[in-house]
């Protein structure tokens, strides 16, 4: 991918870059440093901008408490998948752009002094989609949480859901992580799922909606089918606010909408309620 193409892609995804950023919600031009000092939230309208995995860890976990695990896992191209660009090349471009091997970061950390197993998917890497590496890392995280009897906190941000370029193997990651979470649940573990913008498709239809407690950041896009697919099928105008966090709350699929500034406190509080006494 050429440098200017990378830039366009980033801009299209609403990733903050440059000195100023434009809020997609209120259209205000916001000083980037100011947004960052407010946890990447728009100072004008409280729109929650994209937050990379590193930023999420810094905001949610205690300072320097995070120990990343399974960093040696890298994606490969089992299908030799080729569209306009071979998947292997696409991976290299995404890796160069993000500095990550794949879309998930997992490990152990502390939230206000409480030890947790933590995982996050980063939208910047192939839209946060789940292929074999993401599935394996999250599954290992759930297994470690089971073994260590620690709360599990997963933050999902995925536009595409299961990653098309790994075909059926991506679909099977949904089964794999679900099975691991099933065992974790049976063992009595607390799983808090945090949905961020966007959480769609196979990610929504697996680990993201299997939490004991499901929290969502305000205004996140959450759903199964994409809006275009739905429109192509039913040819009806979609209701206002369709597939937002607020829509899911209204329909009973999200427990609480929590703004970014309150997330750490809320998660810590939930952990305290669910501590086995």
């Amino acid at each position, binding site marked *: 991918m050429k440098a200017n193409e990378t830039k366009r892609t980033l801009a299209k995804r609403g990733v903050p870059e440059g000195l100023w950023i434009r809020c997609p919600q209120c259209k205000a031009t916001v000083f980037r440093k100011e947004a960052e000092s407010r946890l990447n939230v728009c100072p004008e309208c409280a729109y929650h901008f994209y937050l990379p995995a590193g930023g999420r860890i810094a905001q949610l976990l205690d300072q320097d408490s995070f120990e990343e695990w399974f960093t040696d896992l890298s994606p490969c191209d089992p299908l030799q998948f080729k569209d306009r660009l071979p998947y292997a090349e696409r991976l290299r471009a995404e890796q160069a752009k993000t500095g990550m091997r794949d879309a998930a970061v997992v490990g152990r950390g502390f939230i206000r002094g409480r030890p947790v197993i933590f995982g996050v998917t980063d939208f910047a890497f192939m839209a946060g989609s789940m292929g074999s590496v993401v599935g394996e890392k999250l599954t290992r995280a759930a297994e470690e949480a089971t073994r260590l009897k620690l709360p599990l906190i997963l933050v999902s941000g995925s536009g595409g859901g299961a990653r098309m370029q790994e075909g*059926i193997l991506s679909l099977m990651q949904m089964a794999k992580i679900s099975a691991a979470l099933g065992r974790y649940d049976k063992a009595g573990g607390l799983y808090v799922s945090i949905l961020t913008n966007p959480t769609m498709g*196979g990610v929504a239809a697996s680990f993201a909606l299997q939490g004991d407690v499901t929290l969502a950041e305000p205004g996140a896009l959450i759903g199964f089918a994409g809006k275009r697919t739905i429109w192509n099928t039913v040819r009806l105008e979609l209701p206002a606010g369709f597939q937002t966090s607020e829509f899911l709350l209204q329909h009973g699929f999200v427990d609480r909408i929590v703004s970014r500034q309150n997330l750490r406190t809320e998660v810590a509080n939930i952990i305290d309620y669910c501590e086995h006494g």
Partner: protein
Amino acid sequence: MEPKDYLPFEKEIYEMEELLARLESAEGGQGGVADEIRRIRRELVNLKKKIYGALTPWQTVQVSRHKNRPLLMDYVDLIFDDFVELHGDRAIGDDRAIRCGFARLGDFRVVLIGHQKGRTLKEKQECFYGCAHPEGYRKALKNMRLAAKFRLPVVCLIDTPGAFPGIGAEERGQAQLIAVNLLEMSRLETPVVCVVIGEGGSGGALGIGIGDRVSMLEHAYYSVISPEGCAGILWKAATETSKPMAAEALRLTSRDLAKLGVIDDVIPEPLGGAHRDHRETANTLKTYLLRYLRDLRHTTIKDLLEGRYQKFRRMGVFETGAWANGVVGGTT
């Protein structure tokens, strides 16, 4: 079969069959005709072997959607001795795209769960062409739990283009209901046997697709996304050239899935596809289902669940090892 019923690549087969039929009806006088008929019969078998032995992935998708392909309810008639349908999901309504009920298969009492796509236009509309809503997945799980309670094995026959993408489906929690099914099926305390009999469309298929055995009929497909959806995303439009490319790239045929270690068996179809002989297809399917049920019959629940866990735990391909920034590599 009406001419419009055959797929483009089947044209030669039908032409030869017509010729054969003409000769057979004209047969009477000359001895030469009988020889000719024998010769054409042999050639016809070879032609079918040639065409059906080398279907492209996109042709496979077309066969899996053939309008005469046997559907769930055909198998109910052909191989299950009884079917006591259970309609309720206990919350919203009766989704006709997923049928559930008690059934008898050989000596086994089972709970049968499957997608029904519908044959007539009325049936198709009633079940949204086999695309289930959240109610369908809820109904399926309700009946799987019933099966587990009485230790009845569960047989899931999968045939769906995908879970229904609609406004109501999203309002009623399509993603949520599928997510719950995946988790609960992975630990359901009774044997679960799944076969993709036609279309294995993504999450809509997986939503009733986690079991101790997962197999596919020979010309079924199973994919993370439909070839049309994939083509629309990667080639910007689903066209007659991009759909075959997407089908090829996705590795969605039964042979591909067997190679990738995702399915247990490729269940053979009659020469020329399941749509040519429902009874033979059904009998083969029955043989496989009975074998699975016998295999699993005496397994303890503990071993069963451990086996099911490990079956899916193994899936996925990745590398481990040192990594230089921007370079995919390392040792496997």
